[in-house]
């Protein structure tokens, strides 16, 4: 078996045996779906507020869930780096690419599984609240969120490589807060407008949410889906290259 897959398998097993990963990566997004649906049910229809409607909510919560995948990536990498385990592996024929890909692959797989569970729950909720949520849209969204999953995993890899076990989660919490707020997950940034919208547009998070929501609605227009998806894809590519370079540089420094 390829060394990357051997390492990826080890990372998946390690994560699957950590109860926190179930709480943060799966239970928490589901709880948010349920709570926000209840909130949505309490909002008078005449207000015209649709941000917590299940089609919008599902896209937002999936991106919110990915921020926790970032946190877990950072935790896994920083934990490995804090002990002697990685040092031992540095003395084996493993290359830096085996490590970075071995971290990224399982996290992206986990993000996809997370989105599957979130969308299944969202679909069940849509039946309960009698909203027409397209299964085709949910399947399309599962594919559309892969670039953002890579992007958040890359951020986690960068933080986990650069910072220790104590600092990395704290910094990830900042990104989680920024991502959920400036990603327009919990409010409608487009109708808010002003400086806030300009700030949101300068960061990649809003495009992640936008592309996911557009895919769920099967709206693949240039403005709604293609441009946001391309921005996320570009950001994910750049951040992945940076993450790989940072890990390689750190590994070289550790071996100097």
């Amino acid at each position, binding site marked *: 078996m390829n060394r990357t897959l051997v390492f990826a398998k080890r990372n998946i097993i*390690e994560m699957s045996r950590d109860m926190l990963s179930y709480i943060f990566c799966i239970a928490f997004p589901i709880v948010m779906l349920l709570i926000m649906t209840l909130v949505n049910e309490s909002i008078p229809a005449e207000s015209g507020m649709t941000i917590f409607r299940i089609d919008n909510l599902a896209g937002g919560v999936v991106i919110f869930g990915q921020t926790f995948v970032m946190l877990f990536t950072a935790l896994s990498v920083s934990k490995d780096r804090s002990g002697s*385990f990685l040092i031992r592996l540095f*003395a*084996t024929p493993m290359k830096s690419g085996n490590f970075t890909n071995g971290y990224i692959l399982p996290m992206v797989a986990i993000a996809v599984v997370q989105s599957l569970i979130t969308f299944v729950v969202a679909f069940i909720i849509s039946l309960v609240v009698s909203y027409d949520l397209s299964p085709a849209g949910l399947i399309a969204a599962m594919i559309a969120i892969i670039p953002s999953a890579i992007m958040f995993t890359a951020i986690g890899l960068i933080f986990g490589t650069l910072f220790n076990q104590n600092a990395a989660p704290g910094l990830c919490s900042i990104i989680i807060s920024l991502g959920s707020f400036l990603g327009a997950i919990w409010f409608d940034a487009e109708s808010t407008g002003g400086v806030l919208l300009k700030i949101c547009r300068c960061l990649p998070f809003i495009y992640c949410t936008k592309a996911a929501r557009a895919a769920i609605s099967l709206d693949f227009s240039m403005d709604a889906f293609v441009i946001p998806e391309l921005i996320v894809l570009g950001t994910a590519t750049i951040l992945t290259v940076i993450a790989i370079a940072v890990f390689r540089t750190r590994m070289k420094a550790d*071996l*100097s």
Partner: protein
Amino acid sequence: MNAIITEGLTKRYKDKTAVDSLNLSIDEGELFALLGVNGAGKTTTIRMLTCLSTPSAGHAKVFGHDVMAEPDEVKRLVGISTQDTAVAENLTVYENLKFMAGVYMSEEKGKEAEKSISDRIENIIKMFNLDEVRNKKAKTLSGGWKRKLSIAMALIGEPKILFLDEPTLGLDVLARRELWKIIEDLKSKVTIILTTHYMEEAEALADRIAVMISGKIVEIGTMDELEERTGKKGLEEVFVEIAGRN
């Protein structure tokens, strides 16, 4: 055949020289102990010989392969058990061994390879008496079991040289004696480089002993030779005498 040869091997960190012009020759099949107090340069020497640290000057060859020019070849020949028990905490003993076997045997494919990996793991489990803990997660093991697992993981790739960096550090006397027995059993099968600051450990296990002080090897030889040169009996007395001179 020489397992290791170093010529003027040096490691400098800014204003500190951790290893100073090390000239060393270790034969294949030998159990060689590097003895010294904390900070003597033992671990740094091991790090350079396992490609975990780049020498500042000099050369080192492992079975003829230069550690700087041919790190991939060197890494295939060595196994290391570090001072801290470097195991994957949430994996079971068996999974840790399988993981390391996968890292070393990734080129081998097919059912034969799977059987070969499986046989190798079973042999190691038998050799280290790990059967009773094979399905236990590493994080639930005691220090002694973890250390045994760590050494077992270093051996799973069937290295020609095994580096044991303070293998019994922090272990109780029973666990230490059990590890000594395992190391003694390994003596004929693999070249072993052992670092320790436990005198009795080096005395009990090593074919030759090198005493390192401030990054330099100040004495090297068999136990008898060291006793003869210093006029002292027992390694502790020998070491005190050598340290006093330097």
